[in-house]
C-alpha cells in the first residue's frame, strides 16, 4: 500500500458509489459514505439492510465469502482498497475487526494478543512482547481482570471479558481503524456499557465504525450515524447519514424518523 500520509484529511475512509454483489444478487446499492477520523460512526438499520455487508467491505472481509464482489471505491489514505495492487492481508492489519460473537482463539490470553504481532512479522524481545500485551490489555480495560492469569485460556473468561480480549487482540497489530460488527449483541447490559465506555476511550487514537441493532447504543455511543434500509430489490441503501445528534433529533428523511421513533424495525 502506498504510504501517503494525509494528516490533514479528516476522513479516514471514503466510500464512493459502492455496490456489493453476492453472486448475481446485489446486496448493496450505490453507497457513498465518509468515515471520520477519530470518531465513532454507527451503522444502523433493520435486519438484512446490508449494514454488516458495508462494514465488512471496508476491510475486505467480504473477500472470504464465495461469490462476493465489490464495485466502486473505498479510499483509505487516498488509496483504493479494491485496487489491483492492494493486498487484502495488509488492509486487514491496518483496519481491524471485532465480531458479533466473542471469538478468542482457544489459546492463552497472552497468546491471543501476541498472535497478531507474531504473524505480522513482529521483531522484538520477549519483554517487549510482554509490554505490548500489557499495553493492549490496559487499552481494552482488561488488564486488571486478567493480569494474574495471562497463561489461562481466553475461553475461560466471561462473555464481556472475551469481547474486550478480542478488542485488545485487534489493537495489538496497531490498526488505524477498528470495525465492530454488533460487538455487544451477545453481551449483557453491564458488559455492553463497558464496551461502550471503552469505545469512547479508544476514539482518541483510533477511528471506529460500529454496526448495531440497538438504536439507544447508536444514540449514546456514536458521533455519526448512517441509517440503511432495503430498497424494493432487497438491496441495502444508505438513507441518511449525519452527526448522531442531528439524525436522532432532526431526521431529514421520513423513513429515518419512522425507524428511530420505533414505528417499524
Amino acid at each position, binding site marked *: 500500500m502506498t504510504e501517503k500520509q494525509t494528516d490533514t484529511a479528516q476522513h479516514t475512509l471514503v466510500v464512493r458509489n459502492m455496490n456489493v454483489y453476492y453472486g448475481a444478487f446485489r446486496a448493496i446499492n450505490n453507497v457513498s459514505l465518509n468515515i471520520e477520523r477519530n470518531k465513532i460512526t454507527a451503522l444502523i438499520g433493520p435486519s438484512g439492510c446490508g449494514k454488516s455487508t458495508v462494514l465488512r467491505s471496508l476491510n475486505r*472481509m467480504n473477500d*472470504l465469502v464465495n461469490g462476493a464482489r465489490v464495485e466502486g471505491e473505498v479510499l483509505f489514505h487516498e488509496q483504493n482498497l479494491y485496487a489491483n495492487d492492494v493486498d487484502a492481508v495488509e488492509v486487514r*492489519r491496518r483496519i481491524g475487526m471485532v465480531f458479533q460473537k466473542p*471469538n478468542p482463539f482457544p489459546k492463552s490470553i497472552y497468546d491471543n494478543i501476541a*498472535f497478531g504481532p507474531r504473524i505480522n512479522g513482529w521483531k522484538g524481545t520477549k519483554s517487549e512482547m510482554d509490554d505490548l500485551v500489557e499495553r493492549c490489555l490496559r487499552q481494552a480495560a482488561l488488564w486488571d481482570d486478567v493480569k494474574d492469569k495471562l497463561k489461562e485460556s481466553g475461553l475461560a473468561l466471561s462473555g464481556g471479558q472475551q469481547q474486550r480480549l478480542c478488542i485488545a487482540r485487534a489493537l495489538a497489530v496497531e490498526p488505524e481503524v477498528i470495525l465492530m460488527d454488533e460487538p455487544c449483541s451477545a453481551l449483557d447490559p453491564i458488559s455492553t456499557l463497558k464496551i461502550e465506555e471503552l469505545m469512547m476511550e479508544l476514539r482518541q487514537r483510533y477511528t471506529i465504525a460500529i454496526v448495531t441493532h440497538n438504536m439507544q447504543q447508536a444514540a449514546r455511543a456514536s458521533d455519526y450515524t448512517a441509517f440503511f434500509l432495503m430498497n424494493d430489490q432487497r438491496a441495502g441503501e444508505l438513507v441518511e447519514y449525519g452527526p448522531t445528534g442531528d439524525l436522532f433529533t432532526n431526521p431529514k428523511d421520513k423513513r429515518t424518523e419512522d425507524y428511530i421513533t420505533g414505528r417499524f424495525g
Partner: protein
Amino acid sequence: MTTLNEDVKSGLPQGEASRRNVASRRRKGAIWRTIFLSATIFGLIALSLLIYNVANEVFGYVAIEYAVDPATVSDKPLDELSKDELVTVLQGNMRKNAFRTLENEKPMANRSDSEVYDLVIERVLKPQTLETWTLRDSWFNKAAIDAQVASDFPEAKLEFRSWISTSFLTTPMSSDPLRAGVRTALLGSLWMIAITILFAFPIGVGAAIYLEEYATDNRFNRIIQTNINNLAGVPSIIYGMLGLVIFVRTLEPITSGRIFGADSGNGRTIVAASLTMMLLILPIMIINGQEAIRAVPLSLRQASYGLGATKWQTIWHHVLPNALPGIFTGTILAISRAIGETAPLIVVGASTFIVTDPDGPFAKFTALPIQIYNWTSRPQPEFAHIAASAIVVLLVMLLSLNAIAVVLRNRFSKRG
C-alpha cells in the same frame, strides 16, 4: 386438569381425553425406547459371542504324548534341573551333528535357562498333541475328558494349555502348531502399518487441506470430490489388484529395493503392501480430514484473517491445530481397517510361511490376518487354537492403537 377457557371450542382433546392422549404418546415413546435398547443388546450379545468363541479356542486341555518318557532322561523332574544339567540331558540324547548345529546357531552358554528347557522338550521329549479340547469342555466335561484320555491315550499326559503365551508371541512360524508363533506376522504387521502411516498421513492430510481450503467450487474439483467419496467404497481386493500391477510389477525396481541396493528378488515386499494399504485408506483419511477441517468454526478463521493473517497462517495456526483431534480419530479408524485387511495382502503376495523376521521395508513378510487366514483353513484342530490366539493378538494390537489415538486426541484438544 381444566382448561382456562371452558367456553372456547378447541380442537385439542380436553379433560380425560387429553390425559389418555398423553398416555398414548408416552406409550409409543416407550415402545421405541425398547426397540433401541434391544438393538444395543443385540450388539452386546454379538460381541460377547465373539469373545466367547475366541476364548473357547485359546484355552483348554491338551493330551500330550512324549516320544521319549521324561522319566528316562533324568531322575529328577525336568523343571527342577539347572541349566547345566539340562545341557547335559540335551547332549546325551541328541545326535552329535544335531547338537553341533544348535551350538553353531547360538552357543548354549548364551542361551537362557528357559530357552534350554524348551530345547530339551522340543528336541529330546518330542511332544505330540493327540487330542485338544475347548475351554467349555475343559470346564464342564472334565470327567469325560479324563475318561477318554484314560481309555484312548493311556500313555498321554493331560495338561491345561493356554495357546497364547509369551513364546507364542516370540517364536516364528512353524508347521508344528505346538511350536508355531506369530513373531514374524506381528513384526510384519507393525512394519507395514508404520510405513502405511508414514505415507498415508501426510498425503491424506495434504489432500484434505487442499480440497477443503484451496479448491474452488468448480466442475473439476467436484468430480475429484465425488470420486474420492466413491473410492472409499471400492472393495479392498480391487486395491490389491491395483497394488499388484503398480507397486509389485511396474515399480518393482523401487519396491524390491533394487535401486536402494537392498534387492529382495521381486516386488512382493513390505513397501509394496504398505503402499497398497495406503491407496486403500487414503479416501477414508481424506474424507475424515475434510470433515475435521470443516468442523473448525468460521469465527476462528475470521478472527485470524481479521488480524491480517494470510490463508496459510490461518490454516497452520488455527485450522490444523483445531482439526487435529478429528484428523487423528480418522487416521486411527483408517489404520484399524488397514491392520485387519487380508484380501489385498493375498493379492500383492504376502508370504504365508516365513520364519525370518522382516528386517526392513524391502523384506518379504507375512502379516497377522494372513497368518490367521492360513491357520483357519487347516483341518487339524490345533491350528484352530493358534488361529484364535493370533486373533487375540490382532485384537489387542487394534485396541492399543485405539488407546494411543484417544490419548493423542485428548492431549491435542486440551491444548489452549
